[in-house]
């Protein structure tokens, strides 16, 4: 029996169908990466699977329990760390984990022991008696993760656990997720970061506009996309002319920006001299050229027709300069 299963799962908000009949099957001990842009339906799906939101259609079960009729049994089997760590800034880290243990029905003495162990495990033992409001973003995510683990859940839901974190904090979370998975915990991880899904997930589901558009292992999905592509950055603005000429060599992919041309090369590196010759004959100067093997971004583009914003772009959008 899968650890998580959804059949035709739907959620409507008024006239808007946020999640449109998705099918998911996550096996015990698997890390499932649920990849998609903001507003794609990732969080709504997680909220339904964690019994925080009633589905308006379809069925779902978690740890063998139906999310509608056995909601409390589902909640006893899962750990949840939701998007934007929902922590009380006035509590200390230790108080929060102890409260979480109480909520899970763990006896007081045992709850205290587990709180101490978990705080040490996520490297927060020194900050345990400080108020959460004084923690950095990375510390808050680690505390949130520790709270989700206090009852040793069979299935762990992590909703964008590294969004907004610096690379070091992100790596720390990744290591912890891998360690948990090594111990047998099934992990359902939503993310908008391609690298995160690629690094962590055994299987990936790509969601766009409420529908799953691709599902499989990262390797299989990338293989399905097929050929590698060349990413050419042009020195001048002759993108249209370059695209017209390169279309004879391979399929053009949606460009990342106005100075870039992406073209599939069916023969891989062997096509590079031909590409260079074609552009040289047209007098188009190339600033840089890179052969790119298929990535999950290519899978995403293939299935949706547009790029998922990269981490750098995300950072650029969210961190104004100066």
């Amino acid at each position, binding site marked *: 029996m899968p650890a998580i299963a959804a059949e035709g799962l739907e959620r409507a908000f008024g006239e808007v169908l946020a999640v449109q009949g998705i099918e998911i099957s996550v096996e015990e001990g698997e890390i499932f990466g649920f990849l998609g842009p903001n507003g794609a339906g990732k969080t709504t799906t997680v*909220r339904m699977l*964690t*019994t*925080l*939101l*009633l589905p308006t259609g379809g069925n779902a079960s978690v740890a063998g329990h139906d999310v509608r009729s056995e909601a*409390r*049994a589902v*909640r*006893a089997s*899962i750990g*949840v760390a*939701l998007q*934007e760590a*929902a*922590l*009380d800034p*006035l*509590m200390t880290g230790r*108080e929060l984990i*102890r*409260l*979480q243990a*109480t*909520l*899970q*029905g763990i*006896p*007081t003495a045992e709850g205290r022991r587990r709180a101490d162990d978990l705080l040490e495990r996520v490297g927060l033992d020194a900050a345990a008696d400080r*108020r959460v409001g004084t923690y950095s973003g990375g510390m808050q995510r680690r505390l949130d993760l520790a*709270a989700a683990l206090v009852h040793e859940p069979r299935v762990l839901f992590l909703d964008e656990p590294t969004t907004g974190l610096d690379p070091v904090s992100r790596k720390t979370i990744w290591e912890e997720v891998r360690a948990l998975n090594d111990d047998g915990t099934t992990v359902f991880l939503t993310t908008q970061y391609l690298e995160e899904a690629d690094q962590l997930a055994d299987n990936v589901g790509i969601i766009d506009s409420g529908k799953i558009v691709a599902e499989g292992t990262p390797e299989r999905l990338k293989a399905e996309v097929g050929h590698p592509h060349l990413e050419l950055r042009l020195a001048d603005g002759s993108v249209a002319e370059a695209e017209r000429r390169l279309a004879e060599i391979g399929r053009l992919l949606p460009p990342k920006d106005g100075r870039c041309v992406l073209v599939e090369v069916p023969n891989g590196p062997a096509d590079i001299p031909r590409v260079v010759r074609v552009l040289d004959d047209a007098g188009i100067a190339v600033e840089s050229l890179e052969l790119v093997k298929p990535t999950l971004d290519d899978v995403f583009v293939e299935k949706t027709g547009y790029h998922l914003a990269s981490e750098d772009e995300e950072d650029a959008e969210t961190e104004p300069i100066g």
Partner: protein
Amino acid sequence: MSGLATNLRVVRGLGMRSVRQTFRRPQLIAPIIVFPTLLLAIQTGGAAAAVELPGFPEVQSFLQFMLAGAMMQSMMLAGNSGGIALAVDIEMGFVDRLFAAPIPRFAIVLGRLAGTAALGLFAAIWFLAIGLIFGAEIEGGVPAALLAVVLITASSLAVGGLGAAIALRTGSASVVQGLFPLVLVLLFLSSAFFPEELMVEPAQTIAQYNPLSFIVEGVREPIISGIDATDTLVALAAILGIVLVGLGLSAAALRHRLRVG
């Protein structure tokens, strides 16, 4: 451990968090303790001669008369603050952490109300202590003091239910905070700060049927003259009515919130 014992531990744990949260957030504790204490000081300092008015109840001092009003004000604002704190929990997503736990979801509301009741208990003891320190006598003695504490604690829980219902329905701290003036209006339209007999119409009629007046008299009588069974029973009935309305509205608002997400 039985389900009931586990649920009681959850209610206690959430209640303790609620009390800690209040004491750690000045904007929550100030309306409960600081403002009513200042108002009590100003009123007893500036209007002490009111006891000389014809028709004013026979009291040892204006402070003795005002203790019940101060406790009522504190209790009402504790209920309002509890609603604000619950709405803040909803706004920042903390409630989702509680909803994702394998506990009856109404235990979350009861935990918040337990915290509000504890604050009511604290407020009742605080104002009785202030009264005693500044010379007010409790005519009914220790039983009267205990009765006042019990009525104020129970009232806090009752009014907290209304605050929780509004918080759950709106999910907005600013909406619940916006009820602050209404709380004061309801208090001034009761016998909390002035004897009903000396009010002018229509305030007098409103105060006569205001449930808060029934509770105030249940708290005041033991302090100014001694325990009266009728006043006590009327106060308890008023509290019970508010409890039932508050819990009923909270349960409905909780169901609505869980349905719409």
